[in-house]
């Protein structure tokens, strides 16, 4: 039997190493990612169904969730506007030091979040370069929810710009020319021709920025001030619960964050499939 089966399996590819590489991939994936995540998903249910919801709906947790999602949404909205402008300028215009500016866009990917966190905190504190003039104008950023938004704008910008750039580069100018020939002003062309073409990509980039911002920790905690019920983000609450050895409570909050990021991952995949089917 074995001699009959083996050649058929082998004939599917002339290359060796399939069994070994797949086995290693699955083993490593399970050990590092899948089993630990399973531990997270199982843990909170020792509280029971009602205990789980009591944990999630506690005022302090609810406020932290609201802040994390709200600030992430505001930051993503800001990034969708300015990210589009930055991407447009980087693709369409020529100006000095363009390559440096282009490379700098990736800084939030490369700079450790703790470094970004203390830098933003120093910058927006009441004696900082930006914080001092703002405070004179009566605006406080550091140690308020606005500080959370500032940090999340920093973290999310490259997602929007880098998602848009390749699509903007490939964007054919034919339809823009056609619109101009038919008498459209430049602004009309942008609103009626360019923006609808870019919209799915812009949405994808904004969603990625949002997803990243919801779970962000390092760049936020220094500038946020971390006052419970005011500027305390969800990831910090998980750490506080762990320090109190409330593993199940920490896991419950963690599961909610994980569920939301999975929903986002699925939505993003669907969105990307839709975008590529349209192109």
């Amino acid at each position: 039997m074995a001699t009959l089966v083996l050649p058929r399996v082998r004939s599917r590819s002339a290359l060796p190493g399939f069994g070994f590489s797949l086995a290693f991939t699955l083993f490593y994936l399970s050990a590092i990612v899948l089993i630990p995540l399973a531990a997270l998903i199982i843990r909170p249910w020792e509280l029971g169904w009602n205990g789980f919801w009591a944990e999630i709906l506690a005022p302090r947790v609810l406020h932290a969730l609201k802040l994390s999602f709200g600030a992430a949404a505001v930051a993503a909205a800001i990034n969708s506007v300015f990210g589009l402008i930055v991407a447009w300028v980087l693709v369409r215009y020529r100006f000095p030091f363009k390559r440096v500016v282009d490379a700098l866009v990736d800084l939030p990917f490369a700079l450790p979040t703790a470094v970004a966190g203390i830098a933003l905190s120093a910058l927006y504190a009441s004696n900082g370069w930006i914080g001092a003039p703002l405070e004179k104008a009566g605006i406080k950023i550091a140690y308020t929810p606005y500080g959370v938004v500032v940090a999340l704008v920093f973290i999310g910008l490259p997602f929007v710009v880098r998602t848009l750039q390749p699509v903007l580069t490939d964007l054919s100018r034919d339809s823009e020319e056609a619109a101009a020939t038919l008498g459209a002003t430049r602004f009309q062309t942008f609103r009626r021709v360019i923006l609808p073409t870019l919209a799915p990509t812009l949405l994808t980039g904004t969603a990625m920025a949002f997803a990243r911002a919801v779970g962000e920790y390092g760049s936020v905690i220094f500038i946020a001030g971390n006052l419970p019920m005011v500027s305390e983000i969800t990831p910090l609450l998980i750490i506080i619960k762990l320090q109190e050895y409330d593993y199940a409570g920490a896991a419950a909050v963690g599961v909610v964050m994980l569920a939301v990021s999975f929903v986002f991952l699925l939505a993003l995949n669907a969105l990307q499939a839709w975008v590529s089917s349209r192109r």
Partner: protein
Amino acid sequence: MTTTTAPKMKRVAMKTIPILRPRAPTDDHPLVKIALSAIAVVFIGLFLFMPLLTVFSEALAQGWRMAWDALSEPDAIEAIKLTLLVAAIAVPLNMVFGLAASWCIAKFDFRGKNLLITLIDIPFSVSPVVSGLVFVLIFGLQGWLGQWLRDNDMKIIFALPGIVLATVFVTFPFVARELIPLMIDQGKDEEEAAATLGAGGWSTFFRVTLPNIKWALLYGVLLCNARAMGEFGAVSVVSGHIRGLTNTMPLHVEVLYNDYQYVGAFAVASVLALLALVTLLVKSVLEWQFADEISATHRH
């Protein structure tokens, strides 16, 4: 005379003053260009360049000496050593995984391939704190294996193994996601030709596949390393912040900052910022030089 010079002057004027130059219908109005460029540059300056500048200026606020002293203090040196050690373990592990995963995904057909690709990307969409949390739930004092580990006198959480695990988790997809699309794009014709000519598995890999993917591999390893050395949230959960023992550089930055030792915090932070700048530089050079060899389909 005047009839010949007038158009010439006009042409010069049009060249030097952009507003007077006739523009293509798909060109933006020069004022729009200036306004949008100004917005972009101010936004990037405010949100990206100023924080970077702050790191270095705060580090040197009381002179080079103070910054240097903060870096040569024993706890700082231990933190640097630990960071290098963690990256030296985590990056090769994820590199080997990336190679194995992209080999089986790109060179063979099997069911569930798309699911596998999606699963590999999971760590990117998980909050760093949750990435650390999962290992505490398994190996922590009240975790699944906590009691057993304590009975056998083994420590994973608040020790090196936990820090390595958390780092491996957050940097898990970096190499794989650079290699998979590229190797799918390259197909398996060259490897099959080598195999037909009698090359063995390893020699096919080292002589045919590796030269084709070397820049993409370097690109992935570069990003993986930057994240491994800079990871904060996940490591923060599993480390326990024991000075001189389980503090990586980013954690040392936090400890110093919370101690109001700003010069020290920003001195260590500026080393990490320099690492980030070098990463960006090498990354940009790779993108400009080997764009096609890094990836045919995406820039990231």
